[in-house]
């Protein structure tokens, strides 16, 4: 049967033109600036200068990977426990998980300073017990905590949405066939929830590896990430060409990560939001 059509394909042309100008051309601009100097002459010096930032790239990837892993370890049991509650409770819990995301990201991060500072809430409390003060703020741990705090809902959401659709009769069948709770988890629940895990990992890793605000505020300038370096090139030292080269590498890096992750999700590959 011939598939009926609902509209002339031609009507998408305003969008096609828009995305060509404002999505594709800007990416070409990044490439153009990466390979030219301030006068517009072709050069490899920006790319060569990237070698100086190897450490920072590795640090960013390391921090983001740790934050992603911890988020996964926190979110997975949480999503599982949530599916075991009453249906109405599940709706409320889901709303409670999402609600903080509606709060401005900068303010949410900033209020951690009040909690973690040397004269902050935790150290005041510890001081009353005769401990400390501990150095909590301006440490790598604080930066990683900031990442986990800000992006944890992005891990919980996709995992929960996959798990809540899990067919309960599969678990019953596994039980009838002699599976205990542990093997039910490892042989039924875990493989079936993989698409949620994959999209959770991407949704936490990508913003974590590219952040600059969290490291600025909670890292105190000592824990520079690649986002900080890029931000500096564009907003304070005005070296657009180096900034473009750094962005290009960051983009390629993330595209590779996403492509690798999507390999694992041989499902329909759609991102669950």
């Amino acid at each position, binding site marked *: 049967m011939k598939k009926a*059509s*609902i509209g002339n394909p031609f009507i998408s042309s305003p969008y096609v033109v828009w995305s060509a100008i*404002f999505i594709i051309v*800007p990416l070409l601009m990044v490439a153009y600036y990466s390979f030219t100097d301030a006068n517009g002459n072709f050069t490899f010096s920006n790319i060569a200068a990237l070698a100086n930032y190897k450490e920072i790239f590795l640090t960013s990837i390391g921090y983001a990977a740790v934050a992603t892993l911890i988020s996964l370890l926190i979110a997975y049991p949480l999503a599982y426990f949530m599916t075991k509650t009453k249906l109405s409770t599940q709706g409320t*819990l889901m709303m409670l998980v999402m609600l903080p995301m509606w*709060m401005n990201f900068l303010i949410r991060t*900033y209020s951690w300073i009040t909690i973690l500072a040397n004269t902050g809430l935790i150290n005041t409390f510890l001081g009353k017990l005769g401990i400390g003060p501990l150095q909590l703020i301006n440490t790598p741990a604080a930066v990683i905590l900031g990442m986990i705090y800000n992006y944890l809902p992005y891990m919980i959401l996709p995992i929960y949405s996959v798990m809540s659709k899990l067919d309960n009769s599969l678990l019953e069948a596994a039980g009838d066939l002699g599976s205990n709770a542990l093997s039910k988890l490892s042989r039924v629940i875990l493989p079936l929830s993989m698409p949620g895990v994959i999209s959770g990992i991407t949704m936490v890793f990508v913003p974590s590896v590219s952040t600059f*605000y969290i490291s600025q505020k909670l890292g105190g300038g000592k824990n520079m990430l690649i986002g900080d370096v890029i931000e500096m090139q564009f907003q304070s030292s005005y070296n657009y060409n180096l900034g473009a080269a750094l962005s290009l590498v960051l983009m390629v890096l993330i595209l590779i990560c996403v492509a690798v992750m999507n390999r694992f999700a041989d499902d329909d590959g759609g991102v669950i939001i």
Partner: protein
Amino acid sequence: MKTLSRLYIALILIFLYAPLAVMVIFSFNASNSTSLFAGFSLRWYAELFESEATLSALKNTFILAVLSSVIATVLGTVAAVGILGYKRKWTKSAVMSATNIPMMNPDIVTGVSMMLLFVFIGKFLSLKTSLGFTTVLIAHITFNLPYVILSVMPKLRQMDFHLPEAAADLGCTPFKAFFKVVLPNISSGIVTGFIMAFTLSLDDFVISYFTTGPDFQTLPILIYTMTKKRVTPDMYALSSLIFLSVLVLLILFNVSQSKSNKRSHKN
């Protein structure tokens, strides 16, 4: 096991809400510190409504969110209908890959790449600065579009394509058929897309930060400038108010939804 899982859920929720609680408590602080509580006062709420910069940033943020989400919704919905009609598979996958780029790329790369385009054009036209309201608006429309398209697309796929044909057979022009048949069928997808676009635009900091000029400040950018120095509790007061309004809106939305659910069960 049940108590253990409840305890776990409670712990995570405490983690998620601790900074928000801090924010609300310190918005009532009598002193101007965000770390030492000196007693209850409403002075920051009063000061908030006297600050010219805050009010104009709030207004800018709303204008930007409304304009960008409306334009993105119209452009994106029309695009989705067109894309679904593509005959060749490769054109469809090419356009959809381009659509996915702003969602996959980190915000900083999206922001920086658009900034480079605007700066390049500005240099070409030898303008003093090309960055301002127009460029942020373009940037917001661009990052909103994929969310609209991806929420409308599934609804379109679910629709029976013979309906608009039937409408045409009964004498509708394609234009009329679109408004009478297609639009009502995909309206829930359009609304979801619009709400997502609106909230993303309201909340965006990174992309605005790179694409705006000195003359146009949104609330997140104002907050950023303030957190560069020392934050006074008026920002906490403002954030508490925003949080409260979001909370009220969500509760109203949920109540009305559960009511309409009950009604549809009765019928």
